[in-house]
């Protein structure tokens, strides 16, 4: 799968790079929402791993921008959320059409499992 990671934490990106490229996926990452949005618009990705909590342009801003441009429906997204995010707020976001989410800290096994599910869907 062609996967884009949008996360401001380099250590996470580095890990995902190793894990996903090592698992046979085509993974690239950016460290901010704006670059991520630009990439989604210009290149086609099978899956976007989106961190919700980023400085300035947040994951939610990315989702809203995609929604406004009508790109959200077509785009598969797995959201990384903070553990403290309430269910209500999460549901609000998921209702926009997000496929899946993982609470931080990210469990790699769970992530791989979710990616597998989406790939085989």
């Amino acid at each position, binding site marked *: 799968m062609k996967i884009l990671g949008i996360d401001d934490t380099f250590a*996470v990106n580095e890990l995902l790079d190793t894990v996903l490229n090592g698992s046979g996926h085509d993974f690239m990452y950016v460290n901010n929402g704006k670059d991520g949005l630009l990439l989604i618009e210009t290149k086609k990705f099978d899956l976007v791993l989106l961190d919700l909590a980023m400085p300035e342009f947040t994951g939610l801003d990315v989702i809203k921008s995609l929604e406004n441009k009508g790109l959200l429906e077509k785009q598969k997204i797995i959201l990384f959320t903070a553990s403290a995010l309430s269910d209500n707020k999460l549901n609000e976001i998921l209702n926009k059409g997000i496929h899946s989410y993982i609470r931080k800290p990210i469990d790699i096994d769970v992530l791989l499992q979710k990616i597998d599910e989406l790939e085989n869907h």
Partner: protein
Amino acid sequence: MKINVKLIVLFSAIMVAVTATLGFLAFNTVEASVIDSELLDMQNIVHDKSNQIETLHSRASEDIVFAAQNPKFSDYFDLSDTKSGNIYNDDGVIQFTSEQRKLKSDLEDWIYHFQNKFTVDETCYIDRTGQQQGALILKAPVPDEHLSSTKKSEDYFEPSFEKDPGESYVQYPYVSPATKRWVFAYTTPIVTSSDGQKSGFYHFEMPIYVFQDVIKSDVGRMFVIDPEGFLIADSNYNYSNKPGSGYMGQPHEEYFPSIDSISDSEDFAGIVSGMNSLEKGQSKWATYDKNGEKYFVAYKKLPTFNWIIGYEVPRSQLLAGENDLFALQINLILLTSLMSAGGLVAIIMVSSRITHPIKILADSCKKQDVHNLKEIDLVTDDEINDVTKALNNMIKQVNEIGQMKEEFSSMVTHELKTPLTPILGWCQTLKNPKIMGELSEKQRNAIEKIQTNAKRLQQLIGDILDAEKLDMQKMKFDFQEINVTDFMNYLHKNLQRLMDAKEIKYINDTEPNLKLITDKNRLEQVLTNLVLNAVDFVPNKGLINIGAQDKGDSVLFFVKDNGVGIDKDKISNLFSKFYQVETSMTRSHGGTGLGLAICKGIIDGFHGKIWVESIVNKGSTFYFTIPKDSIRNNTEKN
């Protein structure tokens, strides 16, 4: 003591002191003026009595001068028989010649009639040799030995002869040889018509009680003091019926009371010596203490006599009948009470003005929520404003510190959490043979250990964050209706894996179709925590029983184990922060000591109750209730 009570007591004391002082001064001023006028009255009485004595004296003087001018005296003294001296018989009786006898008889007749006009004990005429020549009732001459050792006949006669015709001399009192009464005598020289020689003097005696009649007094004590210190007259003393026992020689102290009978104090002695140094006719007044009372005395030196007339009145008698003064006293008491009452009202108003802002301040402080201190809205024009400002400044600083603490802990926990994802992620990745290839057993063990500790760190950070939130009352609950029965089944299944290592028998006893509106995640957190604790404390092949029951208004949850139990004295601290029953045991579980405190905080947030029942070596049961309307309570709170 409250401030207003303090103020009231202080001001009342001042008010009473001030009004009492003013009242006292006013009363004293008025009393002084009353006493002044009373003293004036006393002095007037003294003047009046002195005038009466003077009148008596001048009458007697005029009479004696008039009597002495009778030409028959000249005739008598012109007789050659008289000039040649008296002739006495063997018995010491004067032998008169026929011519002498005739003139003497005429004089005696005249004197007899003259005397009837006045209050006179005895009259006589005395020649230059000191012999009495014309006494009517004189029985015998007065020998010198009958006089006192200090008073000789010359003492009486010489001053009498020294007087000019028309003047009179008053003798010192003595016991009259004729009447045996205490008398004083008036004398005036008799001048013979031919050569202007003083050939004798005329003499008559007045009884001393005449003065007694004059100085009678209803109020106080009136007295006459002679220069020797005797009371010649005293309104408190009865002289008249006490005849003298001898002739002129009787000592005065046997008849006249001493001045000491008025007062033997030094003060009074001083006054008496002051009296004696007065000029004749001069008057004064003084005060002295006697028997614990103040006495006023007005006194005057008689114009003619060398005597002092005094009038003594005690203060109580002086002021008796002064109704105005009594009324003034009542008025002053009334005024003092009124002023005190008025002052009290004023003080209560003033003090309430002072204490009211303090009360507002105290109430505002009491109402403060320690997690969200609000600045106190109070503006006054006094020192309270400074206190308010200082408090508000403090509140601002505390809030700032609170916020800094919050920001700091949130920053720290976030920064601590961030590296956890890669740490745990790399551990998982390392264990993934597809990515990293097969690991040796040793390598796998090492990674497991890293993972275990990283998870423990994750748990620790989570607990601290939760405790912080509960502490700041910032934990937000996400209420939704859940099927408790389904939830407990899920939880039972989800935690089953924890029981395997110890082969624990793990049972769920939850009623069917039990529903509750609550925060599912937080409820799971509480139950998981309790189950994890139970797992730690039950023995191998032990028993853990979870469950939930409908209790009407609430749902009761429990987690029961047959573990070691908890000592009674440790139960009260069980839900405190950082409290661990047995450190060694909880270490294995990796608890932070915050677990039960967080459980209690969450259940408190649900408005429920959490408690434990435990028997040592038999096991513990943790219970908690969640009211069915906890969401309503929370909404109301927010």
